């Protein structure tokens, strides 16, 4: 771990100013990702600004939804009665992520900003455009089982690891941000970026900008979160699906769907939603929605057999999850 300076300012504004001042400064939240990165030698900040106690740890009611302070832990958020009752897709996503210990540490502001678990990104000895722009991508042709099938570029095929973010992407979510020049709000689905030719930039946040809260609206409909993984618990998603389907008299009035484990971002499944909206909530419609969403999916070959299987798997998982949201017994 390289030596660095450590600061614990008294206010969020002071923290923002401190980070904005130094190009090599970084915010430290729950630390579950960054502390690991410091140790692996893949993050090398000159100054760490601890914000764990600077943002709100409250979940407050706002019109039609909740404002979740950035300091609220994943464990507290998942246990909140309002979240469990009105945002079950979020509660389920949170509880399927990481372990109890990590959910006690991870925060609302930090979780969506965690970086990819691509093993080449995490290995300083491997080429990685995200870690060292221009150095190449060792993942391409490597072990690609956990890599992207949607929206990847020739520079980066990494996936976003968060479960919480998949649920937030499906919901109507706004991110409240404090920057050196004041506050702004960003739609959650605009927070993350596809890699393109600048994979080093995970999000649209500028240096020094800090997430202070996340606003989520209560959707109408039935919720489901389904995570397909190699262990029954505590493993990253091969594919995950968050879905909220509002079905009245057999017709889909609204659909909110996002996929995890398939792209550089939590992947809002707009095509699937468009396919479903206004149509019948049937097995055929679900299959058509999945087909539409995965139409542009591209497999990554790899020495481990590659990830072509994730395309049918994503289709099946999407269909199975939609089935779960409809008010009838599964077959």
């Amino acid at each position: 771990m390289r030596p660095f300076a450590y600061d614990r300012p008294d206010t969020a504004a002071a923290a923002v100013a401190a980070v904005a001042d130094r190009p090599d400064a970084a915010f430290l939240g729950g630390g579950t990702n960054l502390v690991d990165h410091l140790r692996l030698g893949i993050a090398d900040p000159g100054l760490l600004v601890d914000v764990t106690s600077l943002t709100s740890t409250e979940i407050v009611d706002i019109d039609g939804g909740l404002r979740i302070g950035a300091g609220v832990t994943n464990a507290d958020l998942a246990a909140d009665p309002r979240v469990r009752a009105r945002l079950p897709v979020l509660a389920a996503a949170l509880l399927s992520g990481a372990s109890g210990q990590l959910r006690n540490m991870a925060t609302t502001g930090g979780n969506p900003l965690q970086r990819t678990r691509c093993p080449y990104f995490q290995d300083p000895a491997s080429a990685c455009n995200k870690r060292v722009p221009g150095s190449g991508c060792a993942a391409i042709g490597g072990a690609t089982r956990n890599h992207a099938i949607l929206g990847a570029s020739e520079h980066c095929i990494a996936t976003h690891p968060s479960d919480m973010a998949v649920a937030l992407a499906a919901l109507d979510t706004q991110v409240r941000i404090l920057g050196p020049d004041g506050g702004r709000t960003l739609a959650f689905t605009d927070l993350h970026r596809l890699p393109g030719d600048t994979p080093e930039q995970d999000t649209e946040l500028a240096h020094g900008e800090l997430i202070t809260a996340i606003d989520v609206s209560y959707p109408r409909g039935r919720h489901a979160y389904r995570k397909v993984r190699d262990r029954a618990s505590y493993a990253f998603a091969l594919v995950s699906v968050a879905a909220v389907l509002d079905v009245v008299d057999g017709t889909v009035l609204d659909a909110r769907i996002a996929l995890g484990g398939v792209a550089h971002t939590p992947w809002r499944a707009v095509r699937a939603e468009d396919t479903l909206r206004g149509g019948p909530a049937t097995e055929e419609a679900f299959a058509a929605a999945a087909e539409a969403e995965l139409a542009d999916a591209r497999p990554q070959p790899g020495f481990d057999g590659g990830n072509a299987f994730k395309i049918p798997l994503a289709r099946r998982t999407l269909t199975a999850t939609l089935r779960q949201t409809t008010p009838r017994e599964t077959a």
Partner: protein
Amino acid sequence: MRIELTVNGVAREADDVWEGESLLYALRERLGLPGSKNACEQGECGSCTVYLDGAPVCACLVAAGQAQGREVTTVEGLAGDGLDPVQQAFVEKGAVQCGFCTPGFLMSTKDLLDRDPAPSDPEIREALAGNLCRCTGYEKILDAVRTAAANR
């Protein structure tokens, strides 16, 4: 820096701590509490689980600086006059093998039972998913958790 924190109910301090070192390192190497174990240093195995302000966390992922002024409980602090019922149940059911994961399992179990005095088997299995046991004594551990729940 100097860090001051409360460990197992006792005010402790350590000098010349580098803020970036882990709470686990500070506990084991600076404060003489080697009960918490380092098995992956990545938050993946739970062997280093301690309570930080009452919630179980992986001490390997807490930067020592973040622990400043906070309250920590380790496996050494679980027992009062006698073994805690959770420890007692692990002894009774033989839910230890090599024992390296045991401190972490005890902390997670105690937290589970504090939150839910009568968890179902699937709830126990899920709640302990952040603790790896390579001797894979999961059945005996499950027995012990059930026993601890019944004895509390």
